[in-house]
């Protein structure tokens, strides 16, 4: 350490460099201030969307609430009043719906991210295309068929729904994990390894943090897919808001149909917004 001090002194009294310019003044002007303050930069536009989206969602929720109140359930016919009862039908179904979407998304993350990491490591790299093809076919199958397929194997219930949805939503997270990791510049990894970082350190300190934005985008897609697909859970006795929608269709009650579908939309929009929020604030600084 101490041997550096003279060099510092040397550079210190060597205020200007060979061509007489200040070392600091050497950088090209366009790089001096890389973040030109434009009025609506892309980042700011995105933040604007992030800030206004909750207003839209709240507006939609208010509209639905007003419509729900205007139905005056206490005095309406049973075909409307029964399926739209908040305490016994709508609220439990919303909870069920979220439970399905939550567990299927968690399982997708737990399965797809480690799988994606493994498939980008040298020993397993060659299996990547095969696995992606399998995940691809999971998404190519009609969701309806997938549910029925798992119904015949695993029986009725919420668990079956979750398993089917995991297979269905695996692809975006798996593919984004692989793409995100592959997109990390070779030179950055080479520099890390060259400084004596272990493979594990390079993965956890460099590759994964840099891949976070891409992986999160995949998770967001999977989450929205799951919320949407959870409306089909009623088909195999999985519950969820699909029940209300189906009832509305079967009894030809537009009010029931509209309210059921609206709640799904509100849930989906809310979680999409939370996803966007996570993408913005979990993005590593400097990238």
């Amino acid at each position: 350490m101490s041997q550096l001090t003279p060099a510092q002194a040397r550079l210190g009294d060597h205020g200007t460099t060979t061509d007489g310019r200040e070392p600091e003044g050497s950088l090209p002007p366009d790089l001096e201030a890389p973040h030109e303050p434009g009025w609506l930069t892309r980042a700011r536009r995105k933040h604007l969307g992030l800030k206004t989206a909750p207003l839209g969602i709240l507006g939609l929720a208010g509209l639905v609430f007003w419509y729900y109140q205007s139905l005056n359930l206490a005095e309406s016919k049973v075909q409307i009043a029964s399926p739209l009862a908040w305490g016994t039908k709508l609220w439990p179904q919303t909870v069920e719906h979220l439970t399905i979407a939550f567990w299927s998304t968690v399982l997708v993350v737990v399965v797809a991210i480690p799988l994606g990491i493994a498939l980008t490591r040298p020993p397993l790299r060659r299996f990547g295309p095969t696995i992606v093809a399998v995940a691809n076919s999971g998404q190519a199958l009609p969701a309806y068929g997938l549910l029925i397929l798992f119904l015949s194997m695993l029986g009725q219930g919420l668990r079956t729904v979750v398993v089917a949805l995991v297979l269905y939503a695996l692809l975006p997270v798996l593919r984004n994990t692989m793409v995100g990791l592959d997109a990390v510049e070779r030179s950055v990894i080479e520099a890390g390894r060259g400084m004596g970082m272990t493979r594990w350190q390079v993965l956890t300190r460099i590759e994964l943090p840099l891949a976070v934005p891409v992986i999160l985008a995949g998770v967001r897609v999977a989450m929205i897919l799951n919320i949407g697909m959870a409306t089909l859970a009623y088909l195999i006795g999985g519950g969820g808001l699909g029940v209300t929608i189906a009832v509305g269709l079967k009894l030809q009650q537009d009010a029931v149909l509209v309210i059921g579908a609206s709640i799904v939309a509100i849930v989906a929009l809310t979680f999409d917004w939370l996803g966007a929020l996570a993408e913005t604030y979990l993005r590593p600084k400097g990238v």
Partner: protein
Amino acid sequence: MSQDAKIRLDHVQKKYLGSKAPAVDSLTLEVPEGEILVLVGPSGCGKSTTLRLINRMIEPTGGRIFLDEEDVTTVDPDHLRRRIGYVIQQIGLFPHQTIAQNIATVPKMLKWDKARIAERVDELLSVVGLDPEVYRGRYPSELSGGQAQRVGVARALGADPEIMLMDEPFGAIDPITRDRLQNEFLRVQETLRKTIVFVTHDIDEAIKMGDRIAILGEQSHIRQIDTPERILAFPVDDFVRDFIGSGSTLKGLHFEIVDDNVELDPYPTMTVDSTAAEGLALARAAHADWVLLLDASHRPLRWVPVDELEAGGPVTAESGTEVLAKVSLGATLFQALEQMLVSSAAVACVVREDGSYHGVVRLTYLNRVIRQARREAREHYERLEAMA
């Protein structure tokens, strides 16, 4: 084999699976402590591979690698690399970490305490000429190419490694900034005295940076390894001669210094006090076409042509032409030659520190120096051959 080699490669070989010819074939090389050894050669000659064999980014398939006479061919490569600074052309700064975090990479792995790391980061930023106050909290995307490579060098120096490996570190930087970075790096190296292996494909960079240069041919065969002076003065074969390219004699002049040990040519001089006739006599005696006019404190003033002296009249500070070509003692002969080309008398005036006249450099003198350098280099190789 000398025992004080900092880095020693002993018949190191790298053969890739499925290829017949090895990429690096039985390379034996020594780098003494504090030396910059430049590996230079045409692209594809295996110079980068050779560099990466030293820190085992590429595992050798044969031979042994010694650092400080310790066999490191089979030690844990991650621990080995923490002892060796590594700079690459693409720099590879971690974009999601601040400059300070980047530089702290190796110290952190070596579990230095926080205060020591912070102190070290500031120290290194100053060494590479970046103000710590301004730069330590910035991200790599906010730096220009030259600044980024300064940080790259600072990061490689992080834990004060004794050995540095540099793979075309200034290759992707514009020529002006590159020249400045090279100069600054050489100045820092004067103090740090690291043992450095430096890869480049640019012979001029090699000549500038290298204490010694190894010119590599196919499969990293060493075609010539020596000081830049000797390689320029005496390329051993056509391969080396072609690689150095034209102008090697001129480049060699960079290494010859105008100093006191060299006998400079005398030149007829006169002062403002002397008469034209006296000057003319001096010029005639020396068979010179010009006389150098000195001022009272012996500083070169004007070149006065013989015709003007023949015409008589007083010799004043306005006679003849101005002395443009002046080099100080300690300048290189290259600079002297440059000055000769603009001088009206085709000679460069050598002045002492106080500006007083010391002598002149003429073409015949350059010629003598070059021939002497060549003779010495040839004799050196003849001695080596005789010993072998």
